[in-house]
């Protein structure tokens, strides 16, 4: 990178952009290779080390102390002080200087928790600059901003570079990378695919480079004959902790006998979408209907009773109770069913039989059903979850990142289970950041971008089309 330039790092999830930045910032250690700054090799072993070399990072998840003021947050850890007492006047002077330099106006005395998200980011940037960052790393900064706030951010980035600093801008959004950067580096699967000057780039080049395909997997798809309307989402709006409009009027549906793939880079509303559907989050407006029933206000247990299966996003966090045995995990949520318990007392034999059947049917390799979930491999854990959900014969199956972090064999196996479910006439809503998976499995592909469905593709769509939609470029 050269001084004073804005370098865009473009790539989909899993491309390695965040990992690369974490190495640069001292949070991960590297196995091979070198980092040179101004011609000299450097070793970066901690964030403190990175900071001392002039690197500053603004993370996606903000690290501000909620009940401290903006100014206190900016100076935290780099306070000007005399004999332990903070020199407030000097601090204020320093911070005002910075604000002027960078053009990110903000009220220094507001509490961090009262700031709208866009302003929180400003504080993070000012914080990094206050510690003397000459190279500023912005990780998906516009993920939580409104278009107007993004504009303000771009103005600031320009001013920062005019002042001699350098900016690394990590993103997946094609429009932005074209608008703000001098050069673009595209990454895919941990490697740099190419680096080019922005003036030489256009959407098609970028999209193709970003979403390359590895070997296509072949599955046995039966004829595409979509049946009843299982899930009908209309103009769904919802807020999340970070964004007032995580979902901004989302409309789509899922029918029996099809796999609907929701593609999108993480942070565009996937989690909120799934949580709203299964009842873990209440939408602010819009409707969700399942087979005609309105389910907006239902509690999760009631939603699941409507023959819905849910493979959640993070198996260790949300899917399994790690300290429960396999057997106990298979009946999670179903313990009250008459086949497993009578009048409040559980029937261990039947539960064990059920668990064994799942283990057998879904190829879980384990020494027994008493093994704690914690001790299974990721693939086996996921098989338990998927097996548990499918065993309930749900009409609608929601699979959220079902193969994340799994080895090749497990991934293929789980994917084949989804195809089989679809062939049997179930409806599958597949929400995934793995675009290969989406392209391989989906009958219809919907692209989620900034809380809306920005486009729909049919099976066999080209990568370029998908890439553009993912980057926010709607079909013309």
């Amino acid at each position: 990178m050269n001084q004073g330039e804005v370098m865009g790092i473009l790539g989909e999830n899993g491309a390695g952009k965040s990992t690369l930045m974490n190495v640069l910032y001292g949070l991960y250690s590297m196995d091979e290779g070198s980092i040179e700054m101004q011609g000299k090799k450097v070793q970066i072993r901690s964030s403190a080390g990175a900071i001392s070399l002039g690197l500053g990072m603004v993370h996606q998840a903000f690290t501000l102390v909620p009940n401290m003021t903006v100014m206190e947050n900016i100076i935290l850890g780099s306070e000007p002080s005399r004999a332990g007492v903070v020199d407030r006047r000097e601090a204020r002077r320093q911070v005002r200087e910075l604000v002027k330099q960078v053009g990110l106006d903000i009220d220094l005395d507001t509490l961090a928790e009262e700031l709208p998200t866009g302003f929180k980011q400003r504080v993070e940037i000012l914080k990094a600059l206050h510690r003397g960052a000459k190279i500023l790393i912005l990780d998906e900064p516009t993920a939580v901003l409104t278009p107007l706030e993004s504009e303000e951010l771009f103005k600031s980035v320009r001013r920062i570079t005019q002042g001699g600093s350098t900016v690394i801008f990590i993103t997946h959004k094609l429009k932005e990378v074209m608008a703000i950067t001098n050069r673009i580096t595209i990454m895919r699967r941990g490697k740099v695919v190419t680096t080019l000057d922005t003036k030489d780039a256009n959407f098609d080049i970028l999209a193709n480079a970003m979403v390359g395909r590895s070997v296509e997997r072949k599955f046995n798809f039966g004829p595409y004959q979509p049946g009843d309307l299982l899930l009908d989402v209309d103009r769904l709006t919802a807020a999340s902790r970070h964004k007032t409009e995580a979902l901004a009027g989302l409309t789509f549906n899922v029918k029996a006998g099809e796999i609907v793939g929701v593609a999108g880079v993480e942070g565009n509303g996937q989690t909120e979408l799934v949580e709203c559907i299964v009842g873990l989050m209440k939408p602010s407006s819009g409707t969700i209907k399942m087979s005609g029933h309105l389910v907006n206000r239902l509690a999760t247990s009631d939603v699941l009773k409507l023959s819905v299966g849910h493979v959640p996003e993070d198996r260790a966090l949300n899917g399994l109770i790690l300290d429960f045995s396999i057997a106990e995990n298979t009946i999670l949520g179903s313990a009250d069913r008459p086949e497993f318990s009578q009048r409040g007392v559980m029937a261990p034999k039947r539960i064990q039989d059920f668990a064994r059947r799942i283990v057998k049917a879904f190829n879980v390799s384990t020494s027994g059903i008493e093994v704690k979930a914690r001790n299974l491999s990721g693939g086996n854990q996921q098989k338990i979850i998927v097996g548990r959900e499918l065993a309930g014969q749900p009409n609608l199956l929601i699979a959220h990142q079902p193969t994340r972090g799994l080895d090749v064999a497990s991934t293929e196996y789980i994917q084949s289970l989804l195809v089989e479910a679809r062939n049997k006439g179930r409806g599958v809503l597949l929400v995934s950041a793995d675009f290969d998976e989406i392209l391989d499995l989906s009958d219809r592909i919907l692209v989620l971008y900034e809380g809306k469905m920005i486009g729909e593709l049919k099976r066999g769509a080209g990568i370029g089309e998908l890439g553009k939609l993912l980057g926010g470029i709607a079909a013309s």
Partner: protein
Amino acid sequence: MIETSKARPAWILRAAVPSLVALVLGLVVASLVMVAFGEDPVTIFSALFSGALTTQYGQSSVLNYMYAYLLLALAFLLPGKAGIWNVGGQGQAILGGVGAALIMEYVVLPPVIWPLAAITFAVLAGAAWSAISGLLEAYRNASAIVTTIMMNFVAANFATFILYYVLIPKANVLSYYNEVNFPAALTLPTLPYFTSSIMIFVAVLVAVGAAFFLARTTLGYKIRATGLGSRPAESKGINPRSTKVIAMIIGGGVAGLAGAGAVMSVGHGCGTIACYQDGFAAGWFGGFGFAGIAVALVALNNPIGSIFSAIFFSVLAAGMPYIYQNIYVVWAMQGIIILFMAAPELSKMILTLGGRRKWT
């Protein structure tokens, strides 16, 4: 549990290591203190154990302490399984005692029904008391640790007030006696040979029942699920808030039962409210509630294990009159044991200090 019993014995032994280490370390530290003061730990501890175990009085004491310790251990560990700290067993037991006492003084009922009513009311009182803290934590995010501790003090003061203001006047006893005697019809039957009540059987039954409840009922399953993984549980429809409150209520009820036992047993100054002036109200940290917590911790929060842990602590308590100069060293020892139970890794660390093989 829904478990095959294949590897049970070895598993139990390995799991018990931190407890045994904590107990041993406690004894060691206590002995060191004794030695520092020129006493002989061997004499003292043998006096304690022999007094508790070989005399009839001692044995009865063991049984008496044991039911209280066991029930209060359950009062701590059952809500604990749902992930909520019930440090208020003391207060809940006191309220239970008050509840039973009020029934005994103010209501007259036919023979068997009367004591049963008193016991039921005691259980309800304890449950209601703990419900307050449970609701506050589940729905208002108020730390149960703090509220239960506060409620302990409220309960103790309130109970003393009731004793002097309501019960003593009603029973027409002179207040400086500090005690109220209840009609014989209300005393719990005693065991043959020992002068302790049948509460010990009740307590063991409750402990076994608790183990069954946790392992084999759907509610017990939900409680454990909430404690071990409230997010996965919630995503499958188990409501963490209501589950926690239910667990707290159960814990409070068990504690209330202990309170009923205290006021309705005979012997050792029990059978009067003075019983819980001694055991429950005075000397907070010698109080049964906190000893119950120690019992549960040493048993690694296992109901059946608590039976054995309760035996150990009751022997310690019962033996105290036989070593009257050294009671407080034994109290300090309880504190040390709890400290070591706070960090099972610490015990393991100490074991491996000498380069011995690691216990995984």
